[in-house]
Structures are given as C-alpha cells and as structure tokens.
C-alpha cells in the first residue's frame, strides 16, 4: 500500500466512526475497506487458545494464561501467551520466505530461503523459557502503562531451528560487531508502512549462544501464525520481545541496536533504583537483559477447599540465563520455609519443575507461597521488587489461596 492510499483509507475509517454512522457514507467506502467491527474474529478459535486464557487486548492481540493452565512440563500452544506489538502479517508464503542478514558489521549481505536454512545448517531443538518483560505489571503501584499482565505471560515450549551463530558465521561478522537487531513482517497499528511496530535485539554474545535459534518449529509443528510463522528468533531467558516473530532480516550492528522499542522506557529500567513514581531521564535507563529468578505454582489452582490436611503442589521455576538452585514454599506468610523437590532443566534456559507435599496444622485459610533461588543465591522477593516506569521484572513470589475445611 502506498502512503497516499493508506492516508485516505484511514481517513474514511475516522470519519465514519467520528459520525457514528457508517451507513450514511457506506456507498462512498472503497471496496477494500472493512469496517472495524467486522475485523474482530473470535481470538480463541483463531489462535486455537484454551477458553480459560485471558484476553487483555484485541488490537493488537494480547492474551495471557492463568497459573494453573501452565501445568504442562512443555507448554502447548493453547496455553501460550500472545504478546503482539503490531498487526499480524497477512498472506505469508513460507515457500517464498527469505531471511536476510545485513548491517554495518556484516562481511557480505546474504539471504537464505527457509529451505536453504534447513538444508545448509544443523537443526537443534531446545525447550526455552520465554517470559514477557512486563509479566506481573498489573501489581505495580503507582500503576505502569501497558498491557496489565498478571502472572501468565510466560511459556516454555520446544523450539526447533538452526543456530543463529551458524548463520552469522556463514555470512561473517566484522570485528566491530556488537549487537544484532531483528526486522519483521508485522505492521504498525497506525497503518504507516514506514514504521516498524517492534525491532529489538541482543548483544552478539547472546546471539552466539548454542540455544539462540532461528526457529521454524514449535513443539514439533510449524510455528503458529500468532507466534511468528514461518520463522522466529528465539532468545530464551531474556525478555520475550527479543525473540522476534515473522523474522525477515537480522542486522549485525556496530552499535547497540536502535530499532523500535529499544529506547525510551521500552524494555528498559532505571540503571539505579528509584522511588515509586519517579520520573526517570532516558539517559538513566538501561536495557533489560537476563530475566530474574521466578516461579509459579501450577497445581492446584488457587481457591482449593481441602478435606484433609495434606496437599501436593507442583510448578515451574526459572532464572533467565541462570539455573534455579533451590525451591521453597511457605504456608505461614513467609515466616518459615520448607524445601521443594527441584528437577534439573532438560537443557540450559528451560524452566525446572518442582513439587512438594504440604502439611497444614489445622483448619483455616492458608496462602501457599513459592520462592525460587538462583545459582548466585538471589531469591524472589515477597513483595514487589523495585518500581520502574513501565512495570517490568516483577518476580515477587507467587501465591495461591487454600482453605482446609474439615479433617
């Protein structure tokens, strides 16, 4: 669509909604104009999501899980959160898809078809934890602007693809390369074809890790459309926004990538901690890298009425680039903690499973709190961690409510 057509199309949309009477000008609408109301299909059917998932936003699409929906060891599509910044690209043809590697620090700009990627490089599969940087945002006070994620913007699926490192080495990186930035096929909400909804990236060191993939499969099938079909960059353990969907181009940069949502308060937090509600200068904000240690109790669902005094709990724990070393629970609001059984991750950057058998002393209301500790000895806080303008990195301990009603 050229710029002029885009402008007049938007204008018509505005006018009709300004007047609240689409019918009056109905005969003037261009044939390809679809009234907004007709563009809202059922997202649960469209994206094959479980009906218990929570829709946060329908333009752009944003949907999250509830803790108990994430009980599977490997997250299936139906329970995987959706975080889109722009509009999902239309009319994707995998056979014609190309990935281009360019940028200031590329030896030679080169393009690969999906078939070339698959045949030229070795394929790897890893289970990778992808958590939205803003997961838990809804709890911040003063409130932070954006989708109000509670606990369910996290997933750990199996991703299959080729290593980004192998492809970068094939094109050659100049010695001044420090960062990679992705460019994708999704389109900006305003309809402006010259704007990218999001174009983020990671330092070369993260790009070169074994587990950083150019993925074409999720859980053994082609990646679902809303999760990035046909090609997605996957950077486990980092804010999921670094895992660019609908990947068309990767630029090897000689500066920190400066694409959309790399600056300002996007996916950045104050370099030094600030008091809640502070105004922070752009120059005092730092890019989020590894996500912090966190865990969720996925069984039972919060609100269980128990007829006996024992309860089996289980869930997952993860720690960004690190491993979780210890997992504990408390039934007395953090006064005392008991150990959970904690499994090793199936591979680096995959979440780890825990379970415990909880005993309650007598009838009453209890909260089961879960606390993970990473390999550097850092634990989840009980209350909200440091406030930041956009409400990122809330790793406060997960809590479920239970009542022992008789015994």
């Amino acid at each position, binding site marked *: 669509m050229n710029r002029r057509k885009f402008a007049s199309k938007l204008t018509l949309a505005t006018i009709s909604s300004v007047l609240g009477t689409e019918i009056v000008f109905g005969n003037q609408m261009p044939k390809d104009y679809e009234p907004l109301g007709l563009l809202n299909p059922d997202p649960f059917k469209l994206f094959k999501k479980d009906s218990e998932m929570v829709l946060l936003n329908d*333009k752009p699409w944003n949907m999250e899980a509830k803790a108990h929906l994430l009980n599977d060891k490997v997250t299936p599509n139906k329970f995987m959160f959706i975080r889109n910044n722009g509009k999902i690209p239309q009319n994707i043809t995998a056979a014609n898809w190309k990935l281009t590697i360019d940028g200031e620090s590329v030896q030679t700009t080169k393009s690969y078809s999906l078939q070339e990627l698959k045949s030229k490089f070795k394929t790897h599969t890893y289970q990778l934890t992808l958590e939205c940087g803003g997961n838990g945002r809804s709890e911040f006070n003063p409130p932070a602007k954006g989708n*109000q994620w509670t606990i369910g913007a996290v997933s750990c699926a199996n991703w299959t693809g080729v290593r980004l490192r192998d492809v970068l080495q094939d094109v050659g990186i100049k010695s001044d390369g420090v960062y990679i930035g992705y460019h994708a096929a999704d389109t900006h909400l305003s309809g402006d074809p010259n704007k990218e909804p999001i174009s983020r990236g990671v330092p070369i060191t993260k790009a070169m890790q074994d587990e950083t993939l150019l993925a074409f499969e999720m859980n053994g099938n082609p990646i679902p459309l809303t999760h990035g079909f046909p090609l997605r960059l996957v950077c486990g353990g980092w804010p999921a926004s670094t895992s660019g969907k609908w990947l068309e181009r990767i630029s090897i940069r000689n500066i920190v990538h400066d694409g959309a949502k790399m600056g300002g308060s996007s996916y950045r937090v104050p370099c030094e901690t600030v008091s809640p509600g502070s105004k922070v200068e752009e120059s005092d904000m730092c890019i989020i890298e590894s996500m912090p240690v966190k865990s969720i109790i996925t069984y039972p669902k919060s609100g269980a009425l128990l007829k006996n005094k024992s309860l089996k709990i289980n869930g997952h724990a993860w720690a960004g680039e690190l491993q979780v070393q210890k997992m504990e629970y408390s039934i007395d609001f953090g006064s005392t903690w008991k150990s959970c059984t904690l499994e090793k991750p199936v591979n680096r950057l995959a979440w780890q499973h825990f379970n415990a058998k909880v005993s309650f002393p007598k009838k009453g209301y209890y909260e089961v709190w879960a606390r993970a500790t990473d390999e550097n000895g850092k634990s989840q806080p*009980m209350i909200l961690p440091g406030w930041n303008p956009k409400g990122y990195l809330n790793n406060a301990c997960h809590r479920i409510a239970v009542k022992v009603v008789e015994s």
Partner: protein
Amino acid sequence: MKKKQFLIGFLAVIALTVTLYFVLKKPVTEEVYQELNDVTFIELDEETILKSGFINDIGVSQVIQNCTQCHSSKLVTQNRLNKTGWEASIKWMQETQNLWDLGKNEERIVNYLAKNYAPETEGRRTNIEVAEWYELE
C-alpha cells in the same frame, strides 16, 4: 414541519459530504484529524458508546474517535493513570506512534481518562482474590 426538518437534515448531510469530500482529498491524515478536532465536539450515540467498552462520561465520544483508530479500547481501559500519566502517554504516542494533534479535544480526553481510569492505591501486594472456591478431591 417534519418536512422542513427533513429538508434541513438532508441539506446538512449533503453539505457535510461535500466538505468531507474535500477534506478526504488531502493526502496527509494528520491535518484531517486536526481539522476535525478543531471544528467541534461530535457526540456519538449511546449504542456506539456502550459497544466501545468505555465508561459513559463527558469526553467518551472524543476518546473513542481519537483512541480506537489504531488500538482497541482494552489497551486504555486496563490502565490506571493520573492526569500527568495520561498526558505523557498521549505525548509518547504523538512522538513515536503517529498520533495526531488532539486540538481542543485533548483537555476533554485527558480529563475523562484521569477521572474514569485513575490509579487506586494498592500498596506493595494486594490480598489474593479467589474467583471461585472449589472442592479439591
């Protein structure tokens, strides 16, 4: 009498159509929005407001007209900000997301949002809200 009203209405629609035709011919969207925002407050009908998902209060029509062209009402209504916060959000959208000048509607829009979607004091952790207690076998 009714005939006269009809005629006035009819002429008004024609006049508006002609005006809009010329407005539409302008290639730059921003100017069009700006002009509309400067002309007058246009109020929407009850049904449109109800369907929008916004609280019905003074300014809701301007919010619907200007905010839901690009994103859904849900992106607004799930947020809680004070006046400064909403103003900053509008400024950010104008600087980075192609939002147009809101003209004289801005004050109405900001007041509406600050009143109806204001922050509540929550402290560092709220009570756990249980949607439904259930018996666990």
